[in-house]
């Protein structure tokens, strides 16, 4: 790294020079809302609900001048009590990055950012939602650098390098990884094509010795029905497999010898019924990539149980997703969502009703629940931030004012 220091310096000065040479007027844009969240949750159906009351503030701010911009997207949560004690407030940063545009069509970012991969609306099999390397989930983003190059209207090339593990975020490893090792790097790149009713993506998630996950995605509009299909193959071992079919002995397959496929297909359609737009969406997903040997080993080490007893919860997954939404002229939105594990029958349910009595005010009521037993895939629902726990069910009432 020391040898590279001058190079980093030159790069920094070069990039810093971009905004200085810009003559454009500075710009500022924001999207923001504030509100309160009253939630009740319980770890099982028979327990009484625990309640919590929070104030929250969400914002996406953008400062720009010439070829440079700074974007901050985050939330602040304050427990509503008689007094606020230090450490009680939580700030959640979804994105915070500097964007440089050396020439029209090319964006370079540095900081924390989400990166889109694939065409799936709910899940994307190519984005490596992968505990093996904890690369990223498209909703949470990652710290590192990205690029997006759009040479014209129909072709795009995007990508990113994650520094999460270089920065010590190593939940997938039994032992801390050495800092600043090339083997820690993880990244993704994608070529995307959009022409008429067709959209296609070819992407690759990669990390040395951990993942090599190419994927293809297509989306097509057939008379208003939006169809999507995606497929991905992981070529590096993502989990232990029973040796010779014996569940008592688990080994990691040799790299490149047992590619693990994943795939999804989906469809969405909207009917306009008078004042109401009714949208129906369905998607089925096969996830065949499991967990990594290192993570299973960690779980084994921590729990003191054998791998074979943990493995059943970490198997390949078949899921089906249903989404129903009724929306009327921005006055109400009624949405239902269901995610079912087709193997064990467990499911996550969510229903929400949003009322908009005035232009800037939303009233939201929602209910989420999980039906599965402890060993099933969907046995709990995550509580909304700032909580990190899960529950059997969650009831939420929110008011939200946009300004």
């Amino acid at each position, binding site marked *: 790294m020391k040898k590279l220091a001058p190079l980093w310096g030159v790069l920094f000065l070069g990039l810093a020079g971009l905004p200085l040479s810009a003559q454009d007027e500075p710009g500022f844009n924001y999207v923001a809302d504030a509100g309160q969240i009253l939630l009740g949750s319980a770890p099982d159906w028979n327990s009484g609900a625990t309640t919590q009351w929070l104030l929250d503030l969400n914002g996406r701010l953008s400062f720009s001048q010439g070829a440079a911009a700074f974007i901050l997207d985050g939330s602040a949560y304050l427990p509503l009590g008689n007094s606020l004690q230090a450490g009680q407030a939580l700030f959640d940063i*979804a994105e915070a990055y500097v964007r440089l545009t050396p020439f029209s069509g090319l964006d370079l970012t540095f900081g924390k950012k989400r990166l*889109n991969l694939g065409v799936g609306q709910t899940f994307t099999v190519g984005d490596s939602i992968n505990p093996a390397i904890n690369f990223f989930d498209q909703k949470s983003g990652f710290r590192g650098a990205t690029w997006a190059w759009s040479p014209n209207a129909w072709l*795009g090339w*995007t990508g990113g390098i994650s520094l999460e593990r270089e920065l010590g975020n190593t939940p997938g490893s039994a032992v801390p990884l050495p800092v600043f090792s090339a083997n820690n790097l993880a990244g993704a790149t994608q070529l995307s094509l959009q022409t008429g009713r067709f959209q296609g993506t070819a992407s690759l998630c990669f990390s040395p010795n951990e993942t090599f996950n190419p994927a293809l995605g297509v989306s097509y*509009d057939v008379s208003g029905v939006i169809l999507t299909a995606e497929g991905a193959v992981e070529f590096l071992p993502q989990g232990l497999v029973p040796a010779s079919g014996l569940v008592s002995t688990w080994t990691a397959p040799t790299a490149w010898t047992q590619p693990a496929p994943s795939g999804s297909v989906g469809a969405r359609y909207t009917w306009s019924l008078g*004042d109401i737009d009714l949208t129906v969406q369905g998607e089925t997903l096969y996830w065949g990539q499991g967990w990594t040997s290192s993570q299973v080993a960690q779980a084994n080490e921590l729990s003191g149980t054998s791998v074979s007893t943990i493995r059943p919860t970490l198997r390949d997954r078949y899921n089906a997703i249903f989404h129903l939404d009724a929306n009327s002229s921005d006055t109400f939105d009624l949405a239902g969502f269901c995610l079912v594990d087709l193997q064990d029958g467990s499911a996550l349910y969510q229903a929400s009703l949003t009322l908009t009595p005035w232009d800037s005010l939303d009233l939201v009521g929602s209910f989420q629940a999980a039906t599965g037993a402890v060993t099933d895939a969907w046995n709990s629902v995550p509580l909304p931030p700032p909580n990190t726990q899960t529950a059997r069910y969650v009831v939420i009432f929110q008011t939200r004012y946009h*300004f």
Partner: protein
Amino acid sequence: MNLLIRDFQRPPRLVVLLILLCLGAPFAVAQSVPDGNTLLARIDEIRFPEDFTMQVTLTTVTQGEDPKVMSMEVTHKKGLGSFLQILSPPRSRGTRMLTETGSLWLYNPHSGSNRPLRLAPRDSFQGSAFSNSDVSRTSFLDDYRGVFEKAEVIDHPEFGKVKVWQLRAIAKRPEAAYGWIEMWVRQGDLLPLKFDYYAKSGLLYRKMVLSHYKEMAGRLRATEMQMVSLDQTGTTSTLVIHSMKVRQDIPDELFNLNALTR
């Protein structure tokens, strides 16, 4: 006899003129009524320039509810599509839409994701009486072919009784949002005055009146378009164009999905 022969050889000038007028009349009428596609192209020219940016306000009034006002900036480039950004109200601010031939994408910064959502062009635009394609597509000629129907006189809120030509724009591509559109243009300057929108099933479900003609971006254009939805009972949306600027510097990459979520 000689006289007769001479008369035949040299007909009186008045007779010649009358004969020429009679023979030429049908051609003169045919030339003054352009064919349907030419009319459609002129309607496109009058409504919007080829490459431009405009600031508009969309006001939707639904029976029993307060009016909803939305302001937007729309950038259009011929052959590529339209890029639309909502400026207000606060709950929609920052929402962007990108439309290209046969596809429509939406990015909502309030959604907690920067993944664009693909929509169908024929769906309602933000709960208004306009469809997504009404707001984002500026050329009829891309999706429809024009057929001249007849000449007639109509009442118009701005011009009163007006002599018009009626034509029918019939969908020529499956991506077209409507089955056909009946259009009325003022004879002479071909200003579009009124459109009736029909579903592919033949159902009349939207009616639009164009008015408040003003000099804008180099020519006389309608700055107000009032759309009445017949399937959304009592819903009327009015699109007012506040400014319009012809632009030659719109980069192609503005119409890439990467630009939608940047």
